[in-house]
């Protein structure tokens, strides 16, 4: 038996962040991770990019005042076109890979500026706990809430009258219409539509997808590759936690959260150990965390909402080892290291998502990929290259279930789709690893293998995340908190959910 001031279940980015925030506030913290390694879904086999890692998290973790303690390579994005007219995006600039300006360039510049401005407004909401006025205006906390909402209002006003009206108009709308209002359907529109639904279980015509697109633009929308791969990122978070004095145990599966007298008393692990702590933060799925405590400790309505959280992962990961660098017709060699998106039209994305509705793998999947070994030679394997791809749609609840045949089918369809732009690619593959949403769930505990532990949709964000009545991290008995991607503001290797949850837990000390 051993004790700590707080126990964090799961050593993913959010779990490590929560632990470090707590330990830096003077608490003794023990992190228990079921897997053999830390990192959770930021595992290099599963994730490949950074685009929303929060500077606030960096500051709170003491990971560096100005920049992260690891180098990041900003990558341009390439919207692949089977016809060879690939569009290259660098910030707000769109150019054709072969030289020249695509017709959508102006529309993109305007849209990029707008979405980035909107993203900055919404980021304010993402960076703190969701607003709530339970304390009323008489309490310091309530007043702070009101102030923050006030700042949000001011930020909205600062957009200017026209922009604010436009913001309100598109916010709840669907990405497909918004994009095609501004530009003709083509590779760039396809790339934006794909970005709007990546990781989710909806098509770009679904209302609310503009919001998820803006969400991705919260830090400008730039995509970067960490030097050394995602392992560098998870390593940095782990080191920050350990340096601060946090105890991290891997291979320690929590089987029970012990509750006595409506308060958390600690946890028990699969190997029969008991850890005492008055505070437990769960970074796994909300429903799974509550199940560890047992249904008797939660209200009936809360439980109903928990089991109705929509968390249906549709993104599979495909890791290819290649003999040699493939050739993509029309794409210069210096762009082969870019983030490449195969979604030739917005329409294509919608159709790819259709399959998921019926539990099928898309015939023509949307693929986001990168050959990281081009940017970072340390990532090359056996003298060849590696290609990391996210393939949609491959629904968690595949009809017939996920087995080797289904995995092969997914690999073959992805390779067939890639052969449209890189005809020689399939022949270069020496090794292919398919990680399905079901695998992701099994490995990391993410419900449905979903990136965000729950669809980032209008009915599951802010105070409604992960579900109504549990939007401010505390749930059920005293001392139990949700600190994973299922909590506000979601996943994306961002760390904010963990940071906010830890701050909420510190604020709640001394009784609710």
């Amino acid at each position, binding site marked *: 038996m051993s004790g700590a001031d707080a126990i964090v279940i799961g050593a993913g980015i959010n779990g490590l962040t929560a632990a470090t925030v707590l330990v830096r506030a003077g608490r003794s913290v023990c992190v228990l991770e079921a897997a053999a390694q830390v990192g959770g879904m930021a595992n290099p086999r599963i994730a490949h990019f950074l685009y929303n890692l929060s500077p606030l998290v960096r500051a709170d973790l003491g990971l560096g005042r100005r920049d992260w303690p690891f180098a990041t390579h900003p990558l341009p994005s390439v919207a692949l076109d089977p016809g060879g007219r690939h569009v290259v995006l660098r910030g707000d600039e769109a150019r054709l890979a072969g030289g020249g300006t695509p017709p959508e360039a102006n529309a993109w510049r305007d849209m990029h500026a707008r979405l980035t401005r909107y993203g900055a407004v919404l980021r304010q909401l993402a960076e703190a706990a969701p607003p709530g006025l339970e304390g009323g205006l008489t309490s310091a906390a309530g007043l702070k809430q009101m102030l923050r909402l006030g700042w949000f209002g001011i930020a909205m006003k600062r957009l200017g009258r026209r922009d604010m009206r436009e913001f309100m108009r598109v916010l709840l709308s669907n990405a497909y219409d918004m994009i095609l209002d501004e530009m003709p359907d083509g590779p760039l529109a396809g790339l934006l539509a794909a970005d709007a639904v990546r990781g989710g279980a909806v098509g770009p015509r679904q209302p609310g997808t503009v919001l998820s697109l803006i969400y991705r633009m919260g830090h400008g929308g730039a995509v970067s590759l960490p030097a050394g791969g995602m392992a560098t990122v998870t390593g940095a978070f782990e080191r920050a936690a350990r340096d601060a004095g946090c105890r991290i145990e891997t291979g320690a599966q929590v089987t029970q959260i012990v509750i006595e007298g*409506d308060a958390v008393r600690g946890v028990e692990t699969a190997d029969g150990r008991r850890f005492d702590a008055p505070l437990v933060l769960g970074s796994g799925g909300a429903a799974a965390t509550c199940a560890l405590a*047992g*249904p*008797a400790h939660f*209200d*009936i309505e809360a*439980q*109903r909402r928990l089991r109705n959280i929509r968390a249906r992962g549709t993104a599979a990961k495909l890791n290819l080892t290649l003999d040699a660098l493939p050739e993509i017709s029309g794409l210069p060699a210096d762009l082969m290291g870019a983030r490449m998106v195969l979604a030739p039209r917005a329409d294509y994305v919608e159709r790819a998502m259709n399959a998921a509705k019926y539990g099928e793998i898309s015939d023509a999947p949307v693929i986001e990929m990168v050959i990281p070994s081009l940017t970072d030679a340390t990532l090359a394997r056996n003298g060849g290259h590696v290609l990391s791809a996210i393939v949609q749609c491959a629904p968690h609840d595949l009809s017939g279930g996920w087995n080797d045949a289904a995995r092969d089918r997914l690999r073959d369809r992805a390779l067939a789709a890639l052969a449209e732009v890189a005809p020689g690619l399939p022949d270069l593959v020496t090794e292919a690893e398919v990680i399905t949403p079901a695998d992701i769930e099994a490995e990391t505990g993410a419900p449905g293998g979903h990136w965000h532990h729950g669809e980032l949709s209008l009915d599951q964000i802010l105070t409604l995340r992960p579900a109504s*009545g549990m939007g401010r991290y505390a749930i059920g008995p005293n001392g139990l908190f949700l600190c994973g991607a299922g909590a506000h503001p979601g996943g994306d290797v961002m760390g904010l959910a963990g940071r906010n949850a830890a701050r909420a837990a510190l604020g709640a000390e001394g009784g609710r």
Partner: protein
Amino acid sequence: MSVMNDPALGLIPGPLHDRLEPLSRAKAWYGWAGYIAPAVLDTVEFEYFALRNQAALFDISPMHTYRVTGPGALAALNRMVTRDAAKIAPGRVAYCAWCDEDGMVIDDGTLFRLAEDDWRLCCQEPMLTWLLDATWGFDATVTDESDTLAGIALQGPTSFAVLEAAGFDLSDMRPFDHREVEPGLRISRTGFTGDLGYELWMDWNDAVAVWDRLWDADPRGGMRAIGSHALDIARIEAGFLAAGIDFQPVHATERLHRGQTPFELGLGWMVDWTKGHFNGRRALWQVRDRPRSRLLRVDVGGFKPARDALVYHAKRRAAGHITSAVWSPTAKRNIALAHVKAGALDRRKPDLWAEIYTAQEGRWDRRMARLTPLAGPFYKPPRARQTPPART
């Protein structure tokens, strides 16, 4: 076929309709949970006095009944109701209430423990989906018995004698006991009248036979079948609450803040803080000392029942309303249940009045009647709890 049992009207006959229909002179039927039920069979007065002075039979089959079984049934039910269900031994039944997550009462009812892992809940509101939610995650199974389990309430001072004459020896049965007296027939010493009384539970198809057995056994010859109006007088005298009248089952409300906590309904004694978590506990803990209003038993000045009256503080400020009111023939007083805002109850002697409208030969008038809060039921005869019961 009378108008009321025309299936095209949407009401269907209950298991005892063939017995009730020939007894009905008033033809005053109403719909109770989809079944044709008698409001009055003969006259309210005859029925009420039979109930209070001899015995009365009332068909309670339309009540909603649910069976909850399995090793996790106790834990699931204990998370649902505010009382400690673990204290209900097999063979016992308890009056219970259950709340939503905000601590607002969803419904009340009687919870029977039939065996270690076998429970039955009887209540007024449909509760199947709620029970399915409440048992989710527990090793328990819910079965809706509402349309397969019939119930007959036999109430009144001679009810024990009637049962005895019908061949049931229940002399050792205490209030809130129940047992299976014959295969398929369970009798509980429960009721909605505050008097000596029993409820008989059997299969839907056996109800007529049990009814006939009681009907033919009556040793005094004064037993009557009654309708809901007579029963309603008795339950007000006993101070019992009726769902939808004295409290708003929160699932049936659409407007905000129409729900009420057990504390506001005078059911605070049923809230057990020591048993562990139950639904709404955290919300209730916050408001345990701050009822917004209270349900009071009041004596009303004058003779006119204060039905539907508004309640005023110091005759001027609106402070609530009457939920149930009746002239109690047995207590010989004008009684009512009233919802009164907490603000009007702060004083040691609350100055409460009901605004009662009177009509005399075509002239309407308004009268303020003083309300005097009372502790305890209006009518509670010692015979109700006496074991063995008197034959009277």
